[in-house]
């Protein structure tokens, strides 16, 4: 049997029917990785022996398939998660060779419920980027078109699932790093509400914005991963104590929704993307939903707000990569001052340095009030825009990305152009809201288009329900040919 195209739901049905065993499935996925990933560069580390050994342990537990909601599910983990015994480079040379001494809460929860890690996947260095071209270990390619980017920063996570190298994957989203690559690779990607999933064990980029979320081929799969992974963690003081619903059980509830669209926000969107997005609105109307116009006047400041807050926090979060305790240390230091500047100078890449510099300035005496403090005031205004919108509608909707996958190197010389890829996703992080990207079509170049549903805090269940309904109307979304062993 060929593996790679299945969903969680299909694998679980197969296990229940005793059609195959976890070790067969995992072997199939490992084979896919070894055969296909040379072209994609999505995996940074695989440990086939350990992975197979884990799968074989599950072979002996086939009778527990109904107790373990992720029984025998192959999962890929972004390389900015810590998993004990695995490397965690976060795509940076400064962490090359670093082996995790402990496991992230999110990963530990998935593993304890039967998921099997098939490998650690590539990403933009310290999750900073929108194309996965900022990895110290090379760019990742889009399975739909190898000349194009998979999106970023979780480009390895999206490429791996789209190409059939993992059934689902985990990523992190600080300004769009799950939703944008999900959109560019034709997948479902969720950025949960801030505080919904523990951040313990993910390499921090911007602590007040970072969230962990899943990549999957279907809404049901996303809901399944979330119901296992979400919830309070006493190791993350910013995680919420709210109870976690059984998302998969709430998917089929029959409800109609009101969608809010901010027209001014949509200016500058690629026409093919815009057309596909309008079709989504029509589909919701056909299902009995309503579409209304809303105003989000402060979202136009999202980019500048984000690029003050995120770099400020990053400049502090990344101070620990200094060559003293672990990670890359320059071989040629002449003093402790020299050790710091050389280790960091040699170990950290260009885009990350740029953001550290930005953040360091924004927090400096004399600039703090004008930059960091002001940005936080605007952040509050953006939150208020959404709060106001949600008095009129259930969701705010937008395309996930203004364009489909662009070519490698196309935007690397112009940071601002690159930053604009996240124009629809950034405000969601600033407001701490959940955002779900769902595939909605292919453009004339056969590249996936996605749209984004933005909900009220902790209303992931509503997002899943609406997206699940839409998915039924839309029909099965195609996979790139590489996922079927071709290409």
């Amino acid at each position: 049997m060929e593996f790679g195209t299945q969903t969680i739901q299909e694998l679980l049905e197969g296990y229940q029917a005793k059609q195959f065993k976890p070790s067969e499935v995992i072997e199939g996925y490992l084979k896919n990785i070894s055969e296909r990933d040379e072209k994609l560069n999505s995996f940074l580390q695989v440990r086939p022996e350990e992975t197979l050994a884990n799968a074989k342990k599950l072979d002996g537990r086939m009778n527990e398939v109904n107790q373990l909601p992720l029984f025998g599910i192959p999962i890929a983990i972004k390389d900015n998660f810590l998993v004990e015994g695995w490397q965690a480079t976060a795509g940076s040379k400064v962490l090359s060779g670093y082996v995790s001494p402990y496991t992230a809460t999110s990963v530990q929860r998935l593993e304890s419920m039967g998921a099997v890690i098939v490998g650690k996947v590539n990403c933009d260095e310290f999750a900073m980027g929108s194309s996965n071209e900022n990895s110290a270990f090379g760019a990742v390619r889009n399975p739909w078109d190898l000349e194009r980017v998979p999106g970023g920063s979780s480009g390895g996570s999206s490429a791996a699932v789209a190409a059939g190298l993992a059934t689902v994957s985990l990523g992190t989203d600080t300004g769009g790093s799950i939703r944008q690559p999900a959109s560019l690779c034709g997948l479902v990607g969720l950025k949960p509400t801030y505080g919904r999933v523990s951040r313990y064990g993910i390499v921090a980029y911007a602590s007040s914005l970072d969230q962990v979320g899943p990549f999957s081929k279907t809404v049901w799969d996303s809901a399944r991963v979330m119901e296992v992974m979400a919830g309070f963690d006493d190791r993350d003081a910013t995680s919420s104590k709210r109870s976690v619903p059984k998302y998969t059980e709430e998917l089929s509830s029959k409800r109609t929704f009101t969608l809010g669209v901010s027209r001014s926000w949509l200016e500058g969107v690629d026409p093919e993307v815009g057309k596909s997005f309008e079709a989504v609105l029509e589909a919701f109307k056909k299902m009995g939903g309503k579409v209304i116009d809303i105003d989000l006047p402060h979202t136009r400041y999202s980019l500048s707000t984000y690029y003050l807050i995120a770099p400020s926090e990053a400049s502090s979060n990344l101070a620990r990569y200094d060559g003293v305790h672990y990670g890359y240390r320059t071989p040629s230091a002449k003093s402790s001052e020299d050790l710091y500047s050389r280790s960091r100078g040699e170990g950290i890449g260009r885009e990350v340095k740029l953001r550290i510099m930005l953040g360091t300035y924004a927090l400096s005496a004399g600039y703090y009030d004008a930059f960091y403090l002001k940005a936080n005031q605007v952040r509050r205004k953006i939150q208020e825009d959404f709060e106001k919108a949600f008095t009129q509608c259930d969701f705010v909707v937008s395309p996930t990305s203004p364009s489909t996958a662009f070519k490698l190197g196309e935007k690397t010389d112009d940071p601002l152009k690159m930053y604009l890829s996240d124009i629809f996703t950034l405000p969601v992080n600033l407001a701490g809201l959940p955002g779900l990207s769902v595939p909605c079509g292919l453009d004339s170049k056969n590249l996936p288009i996605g749209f984004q549903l933005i909900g009220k805090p902790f209303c992931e269940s509503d997002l899943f329900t609406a997206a699940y309904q839409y998915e039924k109307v839309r029909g099965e979304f195609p996979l790139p040919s590489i996922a079927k062993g071709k290409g």
Partner: protein
Amino acid sequence: MSLEKYEAVIGLEVHAQLMTASKMFCRCPNQYGASPNTNVCPICTGQPGSLPVINKKAIELGVRAAIALQCEIHSESVFARKNYFYPDLPKGYQISQYERPYSTHGNIVVRLKNGDEKRIGITRIHFEEDAGKSNHESYGTLVNLNRAGVPLIEIVSEPDMRNAHEAGQYLRALHSILRYADICDGNMEEGNFRCDANISVRLRGTEKFGTKVELKNINSFKFVEKAIEYEIQRQVFAIENGEKIIQQTRSWNSGKNVTEVMREKEEAHDYRYFPEPDLPKLTISVEWLGQIRNEMPELPSQASERFKKAFELSDYDAAVLTSSKELAHYFESVVSHSKNGKASANWVMNELLGRLNAASKEIEASPVSATQIAELIKKIDSGEISGKIAKTVFEEMFATSKDASVIIKDKGFVQISDPAALENAVRKVIENNPSQLAEYKAGKVKLLGFFVGQAMKETQGQANPALLNELVKKLLDT
């Protein structure tokens, strides 16, 4: 020398480690002296992905300190990151509090040597985590992270002190309060109670502060006083010589008895403080505060009041006996065995403390235990030995740590209260002094004293004085 023309302005910053079982933001033991880098985990070593979680016990102890120092306690406060690079700071920032500390506006009343009391204001108290320790060796620097993440409170005083003595008394009072309330163990040698001093001088009668100099990390009360004394003189001499005081950080060289420059102000850091995004605001609810208030241990001022009432002590005695928690406990232990408050106070203060001071020992290192001193007091009260002999016995106890009963037995110090035993001695004295006897018989009754004295000498001072007196009179009159 024109020191009198000037007045010093002194403010102190004290870092006190909190006596919690675990560290401020992780579950590692808060324990001094373990093998290097054994009390560590991913959080306090700053591993990627690790996050801080607030230790509730540390907050409780900090709030206790704020209550003891009469501070306002804020229901909401904010942790902030203080960013700087140093090898013993693994995260590259220290979690502290900056713009919104949990406590402000307190004070301590201190007693000065002239008997006056003075109120010293406390500007603020805030929480922070300790850094690790760097040991600079000839071959390089060794970093020990056992201390990294240990909970601290920083207590910042108002610039209310005017001389080294006031600063010393403030520090002693603060130290005593923190130890009484089980907040900080106060061990200065281990660095669990550290002091920085800000010092400037100005002409008496002027309002404007002079340029301040910061004295860093002085590790004993005596050194704090000496360093401040030195620094005041240094600044006054400099000004009198027409020099300008430069804002700088200095350290105390206890070998040379001078302060030395550590760094100039120009090298000061921009710490880029900002609110710690990994921690929610710190909230201290009314209920929690009430609970902490109810569970407050006794403070020195309260112990002093209690001693005065229970043992009928003077203000002065009560203040001395409660000057440290250990001394107060020692004293209470003596009283509980001896059942004689006044005598216990006298013996502890006059005999024991004097000798301890002379030997430069603290009460914890007393060679005589509380029960031993109580036993001695009981022997006086029961008439077994005289007060005079007790002093000799005590001297021996202090030197050898032996029990009073052992010394009394070995040296034959027991008071003779047997009339038959004393009668021989008295008869001998009378027989040996016939002329005085004749004078006495002739009416010179004053000579009774002479005979008692001689008889006492005959018994090597061991005679029960009252009994001896009675016996001499009886035998002279027959």
